[in-house]
């Protein structure tokens, strides 16, 4: 570990799923680079990014697989959610059909992914709404004016009214039923983006982390490992391969 002192470091595999154009890549871009691009091109295939998240008692390294929402053959997703510890299922809260698709993904994850997977349901594009239907208080600090302005990026410039099609109550109720984390975000303003990832990091069961290298199981004395210890428990750091073979000699 190059920084953060002796805090244990764990890798967490995270997969993003959701309909095309709901803002999956934009959420990742905001989280990883704190950046936003208007009219971002669709993801082709998939993208892989990493991002460290410092919690009070440990460092989580997210290995993020951002999948293409428009993939026609539905053959890619299984390769990403396999052995993933967490999933971010994204819908566009200005497009009701995208929540239906998100529910399909949640069902597929519950059927096919690791039993302990932490799933967060995320309604993105909060900046396109003018109000947050009853949860203003708890959403904290939502800038209504900024949201209203960015609504003008849509096709309909005159449309002043709320573009929201999915109420907070509906999605939140569904998330509670299915035991999912739930957030409404704006990749554009950054609202709630880091909160989603932090919540996921906190929700990963200790036991899952332990098998990937939690506290107390660190590599005993196997010094000289710079950078990530990738897991830590039994994890072998391939990049730290000393070309020296000092104790290899049998005689």
């Amino acid at each position: 570990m190059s920084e953060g002192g002796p805090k244990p470091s764990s890798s967490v595999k995270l997969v993003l799923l959701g309909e095309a154009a709901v803002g999956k890549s934009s959420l990742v871009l905001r989280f990883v680079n704190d950046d936003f691009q208007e009219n971002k091109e669709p993801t082709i295939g998939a993208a892989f990014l990493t991002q460290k998240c410092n919690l009070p008692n440990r460092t989580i390294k997210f290995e993020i697989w951002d999948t293409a929402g428009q993939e026609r053959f539905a053959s890619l997703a299984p390769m990403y959610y396999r052995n993933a510890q967490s999933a971010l299922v994204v819908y566009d809260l200005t497009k009701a059909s995208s929540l239906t698709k998100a529910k399909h993904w949640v069902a597929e994850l519950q059927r096919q992914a690791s039993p302990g997977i932490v799933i967060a349901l995320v309604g993105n594009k909060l900046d396109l709404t003018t109000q947050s239907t009853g949860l203003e208080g708890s959403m904290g600090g939502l800038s209504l004016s900024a949201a209203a302005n960015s609504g003008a990026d849509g096709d309909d410039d005159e449309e002043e009214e709320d573009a929201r099609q999915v109420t907070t109550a509906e999605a939140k109720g569904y998330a509670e039923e299915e035991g999912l984390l739930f957030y409404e975000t704006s990749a554009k303003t950054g609202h709630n983006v880091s909160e989603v990832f932090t919540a996921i990091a906190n929700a990963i069961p200790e036991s899952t982390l332990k098998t990937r290298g939690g506290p107390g199981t660190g590599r005993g004395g196997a010094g000289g490992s710079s950078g990530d210890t990738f897991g830590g428990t039994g994890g072998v750091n391939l990049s730290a391969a000393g070309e020296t073979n000092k104790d290899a000699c049998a005689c």
Partner: protein
Amino acid sequence: MNIESLNQTIWDAVIVGTGLRESILAAALTRAGKRVLHLDRNPYYGSEYTALSLDELETWARLHQADFHLPDLQDPPMLAKPRSYTLSLSPGLLYTTSPLLSLLVASGIHESLEFLRVGGWFIYRPDTGADETLTPVPNSREDVFNDQSLDPRAKRLVVRALKSILGLEGGSVADWTQKSLQEYLEQSSLHLPSRIISAFASLTLRHDRPGEIPFEEAERDIRNHFGSIGRFGPGFAAVIGRYGSGSELVQVFCRAAAVTGNAVYVLESDIMNIENNIPYPSWAVEKQFKHEDSIGIHLQLRSGDSIWARHLIATADNLPGGIPIVESLPKPLVEDRYWLSVCIVSNPLQNLLRTSEPPLAAGAVVYIPANALKEDSYLNTHPIYIFVHGSETGECPDGQSILYVSMKGDNKRFLDTAVNSLLNKVRDNNGSTGQILLSMKFENTVESRPLKEANRDSSLHILGKHTPLIEIPDAVLDQVIDIYGDIVGSRDTFMEKVEVEEGEPRDNKDTIFE
């Protein structure tokens, strides 16, 4: 260009099957800018390299006439949920010196993979007291000298044999080229006992008896073993990938291909027909594909899609039978038959996973010599390997382990006998031996023709049948690089590194993004 259009493209390569060689090729070709359509007839990735949950394994067993057995003794039931298991058809290890590992690092693909240590090698000895039934194979000269079971003279002889095999002694071993490992170790100046011979033989990971292993090959294997110790840390020579080893490797290569945006993946896709040297259709000639070649491969999929490709890469058994191109392929010369089993046992086998450095290793290799087990008054004719995967691999819950058993020929009943014999000798912390919670036994063949000799012409690249056993062989890479060179025109660009976007470390939720 619309990436999702299967029909309106001339693919640089269509790859059929998602085994290891196919997946490495997909990653390498797409990184070189080639457009790849990667198909698999199964609803899962990996072909013969796949890993399955408990219920998927049951389905697999039914489709492959495997012997799936759930002993009727689980009260209370001890198996966890089906998806708590990742049962691998390719649990094999990689030596730390494996060129495949170097490739993973050089290409940056290792970033999303986790490798774990294989700790000890053990020899099963039926002829001793209970505590000594499993003897660790020495990893160093110190180990040899610390071995209580050897007298001083034997220690000197073992060290001498080891030094000479490793080429550390002046003397030449050239005279032994036509001899076996056993003959070498039994020569009059060494005259080592059978249990020492077993220890040397176990390091070759070969399923032949020591008397059948050519000395030259054994020498190479043993040198490789000792040369691998210490490369990534003290005390271990080999690693396995978490979550099923080979099956996980396959997945990362497929992901690496998909990430380039140059690959399209379609599972559950069957090929109905293949024709070669067919003129491309007029749209292709007119449109974007102004290429020197005017003929290619035409594939018909069951979905009705009509596919055009410059190259086709597949193992013969992933292609449809009964069509001229496939029927005209040369048949494999000799096939070795193996019995394999996958067992879930209710014993964490921690005593086998201890190493000189904590924490526990994830895997261990147990070698049962020929004639060590008895079944209906018959002895096992060939050595048996049990590759232990502990729960650290993520393949099973804590308190259990997965045993992957392999042997050549012989009677499949020895597979369970081997596991039970091992369990009887390795008690868990409560003194319990544990039991087999599930076993699946199946037969497989391995072409004796070297992997490297792929059957290729300029556009059809047919891979030899390959069954991963206890080691993922280096030779897979040679073959892959050959085909890559044929398609790309140069081997130099094989799997060049692609930068992964990595964010600055973020603090916890106090961080506000403006």
